[in-house]
Every structure is written in structure tokens, then in C-alpha cells.
């Protein structure tokens, strides 16, 4: 997926707005399909709804019933020899996969942390492949269709989906699988595109929202959040926050935002801190002194951000840190352990993306 992400970045100039990225992806997919169709014109048949229409054009060789030569016209697989079947099946499966990827991205972006289900995401990718395969096998054979019904009837499974919207995603994956299976990838592509854009627009305008119920943005998270802004200029949906927060919560949030803002520094400057040190300890004061010693010698700058005192379990110290360039994460944590080993139960340093990238390039 990093390859696809970087290709999309080229199209979108690195924009992380979902609509732009989706448009870029489908544009890229369309260009690839166009290129493939130029080199292999017959593959257009697979994208042009031949299966639905049942009216292939042009001359076609019939199978010789005595010698079996020529282009086969099997009653099971439709026109085409073994090679044709293999190629068309491969194209169908790859096409299905490429069409379902953006659907899974939208699902992952749109579902709330609580409602997110990895099994549904994987189902969205795998189910249409299976459906397409079944349709390819069953096509034009009533006997096979009945056999399949018998086999599927024997394999019972029941899954309760927590959210009806998950069901819609599953339905879509079946529909795309069907479309691909009947060699109408173009229909599948339109389904996938329309579904994703309609879903995003529904989210964007909070369609059908009842003011008394939690807002969509309180249930749906991720990159789609930015779309909730009325003006499109704010990254955080103000109106949703106002409607969903109590005054006390708003105060706490404002305090946190203030702290984050201070930590990040002013605009157009590099962040003042780039990592968070988390230390769990039962002896807050002594551990604080020991950790501070290490920070003084290894960090360019550091700041104790928050102390959460727990009863019955270790308290947690959060430091905002900017390490010296010569100090690596492992070296730093080793020194923390050696300096305050007896006082702390655990220590971890979460490094920001930029530092991680630099580390990787150094390696």
C-alpha cells in the first residue's frame, strides 16, 4: 500500500483530503485501465458489461465438437479457451481487489474507534473476490447454481453486525463481486465510486441528522473529520464540539489545546518537541529527579507535561522531549533505565514521524 499512497500523493500533491485522494485513486485506476486496454484491446470486453448484455459483437469461432479445436465455447465458462478463462479470471479478481481497496479505506477512515472492526475490513476485501469467483463458476449453469446453493446451505454461519452501516459495506462488496463475476467491471467501478463519494457527501453534510442524537462526527473519525467543518477552513468541527461537550469538558479541552499549542510553538516553525516520554512509577518525586538528570544530559529541551497520579497502580509522568541529534531512542531509554531502574516500572519514548524518517534514512 505505501506504493499506492505515494502514487496518490503525486496526484494530490500530498493533500490528505479524502475526496481529493479518492478522485486521485480512481483517476490513476482509470489511466491504468486505459493503458491496459490500449495494449490488450480484448480486455475492454471485460470492462464493458459484456456479461450483463450477453451480446458479444464481431466474429467468433465456434468450438469444433469433433476435435475440440478452435476457440472454446464451454457451457460453463462462456466463450474462451483455457488461457482466456485464466486471463479473464485474473483480470476480474485484480479489478475487484482494486475497486474494493478505496471502499475499505473509507470504512477505516469513517468508522469510529469503538465501532471499527478489523474483520469487517478484511471481509470487505476478501468477500467480493469469493463472490466474483463463484459467479464466474456458476455463470450460465443452472445445475452448478443449485449445487452451489446446496454447498453453501451446508456451511452455516451467522454474524451479527453491530452497525447497520457495516451491512451496507458488506452489501456493496457483494455487489462489486457480482459485477466483476459477470464480467462487468465497469459497473463495479461505478458502484465503488458512487458509494464512496455518496458516503463522504452524506458525512460532509451530516445528512439525516437528529440534533438530539450524537453527531456523526462523534461517531466517525479520522481524515473525514476535516470535512465536518462548515466553512472547510477549520480542521476541527466547532459546531459538533459545541453540541457534544459540557462546559466542564470544554474547559478541560481548552486547557489541553493550550498546552498542545504551547508545545508545538508558533506557526511556520519546527515543533519545539518531537517526542513524548512516558514513565510509569510508584515513587513520583524520586523518579522525577532521576529522569530529569537523564533529560538534562541527553535532551536539547524537555518539559514535564503532565503527571497522572493513580492509586492501586503506577502513576504516569509525561514529558515532552526533543533529544539531541547524537542520542538515539534506545540509548536514551537505556540510560533512563540505568539511572532510575529501581524507581520506575516502565519507560517509553514515542518519537514523531519526522525523527523516525530521519532515523530510517540514516540506517
Amino acid at each position, binding site marked *: 500500500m505505501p506504493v499506492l499512497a505515494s502514487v496518490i500523493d503525486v496526484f494530490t500533491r500530498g493533500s490528505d483530503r479524502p475526496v481529493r485522494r479518492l478522485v486521485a485513486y480512481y483517476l490513476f485506476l482509470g489511466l491504468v485501465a486505459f493503458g491496459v486496454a490500449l*495494449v*490488450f*484491446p*480484448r*480486455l475492454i470486453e471485460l470492462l464493458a458489461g459484456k456479461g450483463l448484455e*450477453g*451480446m*458479444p*459483437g*464481431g*466474429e*467468433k*469461432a*465456434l*468450438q*469444433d*465438437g*469433433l476435435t475440440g479445436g*478452435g476457440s*472454446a*465455447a*464451454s*457451457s460453463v465458462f*462462456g*466463450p474462451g479457451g483455457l488461457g482466456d478463462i485464466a486471463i479473464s479470471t485474473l483480470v476480474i479478481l485484480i479489478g475487484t481487489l482494486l475497486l474494493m481497496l478505496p471502499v475499505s479505506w473509507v470504512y477505516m477512515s469513517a468508522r469510529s474507534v469503538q465501532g471499527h472492526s478489523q474483520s469487517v475490513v478484511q471481509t470487505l476485501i476478501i468477500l467480493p473476490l469469493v463472490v466474483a469467483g463463484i459467479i464466474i463458476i456458476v455463470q*450460465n449453469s443452472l445445475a452448478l447454481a443449485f449445487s452451489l446453493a446446496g454447498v453453501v446451505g451446508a456451511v452455516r454461519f451467522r454474524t451479527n453486525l453491530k452497525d447497520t452501516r457495516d451491512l451496507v459495506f458488506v452489501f456493496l462488496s457483494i455487489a462489486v463481486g457480482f459485477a466483476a463475476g459477470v464480467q462487468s467491471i465497469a459497473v463495479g467501478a461505478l458502484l465503488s465510486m458512487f458509494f464512496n463519494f455518496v458516503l463522504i457527501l452524506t458525512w460532509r453534510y451530516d445528512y439525516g441528522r437528529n440534533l438530539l442524537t450524537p453527531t456523526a462526527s462523534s461517531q466517525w473519525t479520522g481524515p473525514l473529520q476535516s470535512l465536518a467543518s462548515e466553512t472547510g477552513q477549520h480542521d476541527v468541527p466547532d459546531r459538533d464540539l459545541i453540541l457534544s461537550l459540557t462546559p466542564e469538558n470544554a474547559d478541560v479541552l481548552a486547557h489541553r489545546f493550550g498546552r498542545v499549542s504551547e508545545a508545538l510553538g508558533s506557526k511556520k516553525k519546527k515543533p519545539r518537541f518531537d517526542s513524548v516520554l512516558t514513565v510509569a512509577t510508584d515513587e513520583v518525586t524520586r523518579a522525577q529527579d532521576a529522569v530529569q538528570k537523564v533529560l538534562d544530559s541527553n535532551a536539547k529541551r524537555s518539559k514535564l507535561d503532565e503527571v497522572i497520579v493513580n492509586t492501586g497502580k503506577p502513576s504516569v509522568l509525561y514529558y515532552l522531549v526533543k533529544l539531541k541529534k547524537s542520542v538515539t531512542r534506545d540509548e536514551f531509554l537505556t540510560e533512563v533505565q540505568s539511572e532510575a531502574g529501581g524507581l520506575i516500572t516502565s519507560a517509553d519514548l514515542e518519537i514523531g514521524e519526522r525523527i523516525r524518517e530521519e532515523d530510517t534514512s540514516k540506517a
Partner: protein
Amino acid sequence: MRTWGAAALFIGVTAVTFGCSDNTRGGALQLKALGRTRERELAARLAKADKPDKKSDESKPVAVWIMPPELREISGLALTADGRVLAHDDEVAKIYVIDPKRGIMLKQFTLGTGMRADFESITEAGSDIYMLASNGVLYQFQEGADGSGVPYSANDLHLGKECEFESMVYQADSNWLVMPCKNARDKTLEHNLVIYRWKIGGTADNRLSMVSVPFAQLVGNNKWKSLHPSDITIDPATGNFVMISSHENALIEMTRNFGLVRAEKLPPGHNQPEGVAITKDGILMISDEATRKPADISLYRWHPTQPTDTIQ
């Protein structure tokens, strides 16, 4: 070494790209070559059938063309003046044009948008094509381009209560469409083959006529008690009618006046024969609907008899 490797890779990729590219011209050339090969092979098999030896089995077809899945319910067959075969689906008004000697599906077209009815037979009369439904509705149209929907006119013969139709042929010298009944409803004619004739361009007075022939005169030495014609054609060499019956698995040749020339069983292997046609150069074609095997058209060498009588 690296340069050679890159060159080999480039040549390989180029070869695969051009070799695998399935452009339209390449496909047409391949099809043409396949058609020529098949034509030669068929000519050789026909020549062998003309000079049978002890080992040869005349009941075996000289060629069998398997129909595509969409034509699994192939019904009638008809020959065009230039030797192509018209075949149609049983339920949808879709006509398939086939080159019988090369085994190539040339094109398909529909009547209008492809309406549904119980289509049973097809025949060509001059520049017009007629298709008959089992209830006696006659559809008239002309050949269309590949993938097109052609305009048509429908003419109800009002014979649906008298007869269930399944076959029709155009008799050029009399300008009649000859339409035997598969099942005649008239009890007084239950032991007869009832044949309706509809004159193209005739007046209301002489347009429609009916002939009945006792089954006993048509079955010959066979034990068939009745006949249920599936399709009828005319042998271009003699002008005789050649009729097949799926129910009795029979092939019957009749004179123009419906006198028996031969009545014999169809060659083995025909599970549901629905169409028959004979070419000018003596090839008998029988189409079978899909049953346990896909639909097909079988080609046999046809040995015509001498013409026996003249038209009445």
C-alpha cells in the same frame, strides 16, 4: 554482463507485449486462418463421405459446431442465399448468423430490442426473413448489422387455436410459407399431419390453405403412430421437403405433394433436434438444443434422391 541482461530483459518484455497483444487485426487474421483450415478439413471429410469404405460410418457427422451458451436453446435453422445459416433462440427474438463451413459465428441481431415469445422456426424468403412463433404469429424483418435491433412487423395468422407450430419453410417457386403443425387441435385430424400454407403477397381469398396427410402415408416401415415435426426444410437439389421430428427422432423426406420419399431414424446422438437445413452442395445440418451437452449444429453428407413429382 549487466548490459546484456538489460538487453535480454528489454527484448523479452517487448516480445511478450507484442506477442500477447490481442489487437483487432491480429484476431481477425487468426480467425480467417482458422476458417480456412476448417473449410479444407470439412471438404476433406465430405470427400471421404462421398467415397465411403468399409470403415466409414455414414451416421457420424462430418462436423459438429458447439454453440455458445447464449444459444443453448437453439430452435430453428435457415439458410441464406449465400450459404450462411440463420439460427435463433427459443425465447428471445435474437438471430445468430453462422458460417456453417468455417464454424464461425458471424454476427447477431435482434428484432427491435429483443422481445420475448415462443419462437419456433425461421426461413428466408428473398430479402425478407420470417420467424414463426408457436401460436401462429409470423414476424417479418430483414437482416441487420451486428449487434443491431432491426424493425419488424408481426402478422397473427389466427391459427393458434387450430395448431401448435414448430416448423416453417419458404417454397420459392410457389411463394408459400409451408408450416406443418406439431400438434393439430382438430380431433378429426388427429391421425393426420396438418400443414398450413401461407402465400406471401396473396389476397385474403387465396392467402391461406391447409393440407392434411395421414400419418400412415408418411411413417413408412417405422412404428411411429404420429409425427410431431420439429423443423422442415427443402432440399435445394430436388425441391423435396425434409422434415425432422424430435419426439419420434425421425427424418422424413416428402415430395412437393407430400408423398413419402424416405422415412428413417435420425443419426444417433441427437437428444433434442430442433432445426434442419440442407445446403446446395449437399450438407445436411441438424441443430440440437442443449440438454446434457451444449447446443450444437451437426453437419452430415446429404445424398439427394431424384425429384418425383411436380408442384400442385
